[in-house]
């Protein structure tokens, strides 16, 4: 398995408070990896550390085999794009202005956009179907449109790896699917490595190639969907008693219903 990113002996936390005490983590190249786990298990923290938002307290992260600590933040931005959870744009910022921020690591000086920059911006807006919104102000868009615009920004960054922190939260079911279909297309057509934090297990199972299941700051299970989306795993990770069947359409395992373990119902 070729790796896009690898974290070795990671210790991650906020000051005194350690969230992830010791972790080795692998993000396979060219695949969609979903990080799942209960609230507070450290999945967003892990993603932030992988995206160098949160400094490591110890350990190393390698990106395509190169130690991230040896790279300038600007060079990392050419390899890895991040979509944080619930991103906010300054009031009045236009869609095309926001997408153009993706070209930041390629610009110099005053930052006049080159022909190449314009091409990347337009391509990103086409792929995410936001081209006809380009003159709109970001804060006037609907939740689904806004999320697509942010993904367009990440795309304009032209990186082999994209990390997304809960990209489907606050969206209705159709818009959640729309975002995940978009990620799938990017993964298949442009061979992007995608890693995301997501709460909906069935969507995670349906759209991912690789799952990482976390609890209390450690990885309990990782591997392909069939290996992780199992009754025993969900019991260990979420304390859920889950009824799992094959999805007749996607042929991936899917959770038909569930209850809390030890509950009386």
């Amino acid at each position, binding site marked *: 398995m070729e790796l896009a990113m690898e974290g070795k002996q990671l210790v991650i936390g906020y000051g005194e408070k350690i969230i992830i005490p010791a972790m080795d983590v692998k993000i396979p190249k060219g695949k969609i990896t979903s990080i799942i786990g209960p609230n507070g298990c450290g999945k967003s923290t892990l993603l932030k550390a992988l995206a160098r938002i949160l400094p490591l307290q110890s350990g190393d992260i390698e990106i395509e085999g190169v130690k991230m600590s040896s790279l*300038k933040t600007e060079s990392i931005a050419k390899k890895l794009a991040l979509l*944080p959870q619930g991103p906010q744009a300054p009031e009045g910022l236009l869609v095309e202005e926001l997408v153009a921020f993706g070209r930041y690591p390629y610009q110099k000086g005053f930052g006049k956009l080159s022909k190449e920059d314009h091409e990347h911006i337009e391509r990103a807006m086409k792929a995410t179907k936001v081209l006809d919104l380009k003159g709109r102000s970001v804060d006037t868009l609907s939740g689904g449109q806004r999320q697509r615009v942010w993904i367009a920004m990440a795309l304009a960054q032209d990186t082999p790896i994209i990390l997304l922190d809960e990209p489907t939260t606050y969206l209705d079911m159709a818009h959640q699917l729309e975002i995940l279909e978009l990620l799938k297309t990017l993964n298949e057509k442009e061979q992007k490595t995608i890693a995301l934090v997501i709460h909906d297990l069935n969507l995670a199972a349906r759209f991912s190639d690789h799952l990482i299941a976390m609890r209390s700051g450690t990885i309990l299970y990782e591997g392909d969907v069939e290996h992780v989306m199992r009754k025993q795993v969900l019991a260990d990770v979420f304390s859920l008693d889950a009824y799992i069947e094959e999805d007749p359409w996607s042929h991936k395992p899917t959770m038909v219903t569930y209850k809390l373990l030890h509950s009386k119902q």
Partner: protein
Amino acid sequence: MFKNVKVLFPCLIVLILLLLVLDIQAGYASIPWNELLSSLFAHGDETTRFLIVELRLPRVLASLLIGIGLSLSGCVLQGVSHNEMTEPGLLGINAGAGLMMALYLLLFQNQSPHFSFLLPLLAFAGAGLTFWIEYKLASNKKKLHPNRLLLMGVAISMAITSLTTILMLKMPDQQYAFVQSWIAGNIWGASWTSVLFLTVSMAVIFGLIAYKSRILNALALQEEVSIGIGVNVFKESRLFFVLAIILASLCASIGGGLSFVGLVCPHLARRIVGPNYKKLVPASVLIGGVLLLVADIGSRTLFLPYEMPIGIVATVIGAPYFLYLLMKN
């Protein structure tokens, strides 16, 4: 129509030129227009010429420059601190400058002949020192916490203002009045030397900020996004904080405790041209210039034969308009 910067900027520049002329003409000894023109462009009456070239022109230009500087400073600070309420006064810049001056006056009772040279230096030192303390307290491990910096600024400037008040109580009346009017914001001791110094240093800082407006734009995004697109947030925001503080200190050294300008003008500029710093920087600068020129005209004509501190006039003009802007949303 004014949303288009190609219309807005030339209009503002013309407005500034008009206000400049009006401002030179305004005041206790009002100058007839024909004399004004002849002394500016030809050899007119010697007294009028002295009044205009040596007294009024430096003061008028100083007002313009201070408006520009404070507005630019506020505009930068609001971006890097992610807070619309930020302005240089909030960080205790004026308070620090005021305390230094009060200390000097109290310790060296004499009016040293070099006072007019010393005052800017003192103000600058006081402002710089205040910011340095706040900065040290608000950053750790290569991370600057803008919110902590602002809270620190509020607390420290309150403490410093109280100290200054205590010092002022010990002053003779004349000194007390001087410090009082300085704190309210008064263009003091504007000479050609200080105008020239302000112009050169502010031009350099303006150039740097305008050149780096791409980075300023990226810093105004939330921190996770800024880092994600490759901004060295700690290094760059520190640079912008320092540039903004230098600007504000320069202004405080000649204009005293003007506070409102740095808050209102960038806000107004943002309402008109939007959040893109490539337009916002020039717009703030021009609007700041306009406001202080108007305030200067007001300060020298409204209460003849007395002169109001320009800071008070700027606030009286700015505050209702600011409220109106906030109410409208």
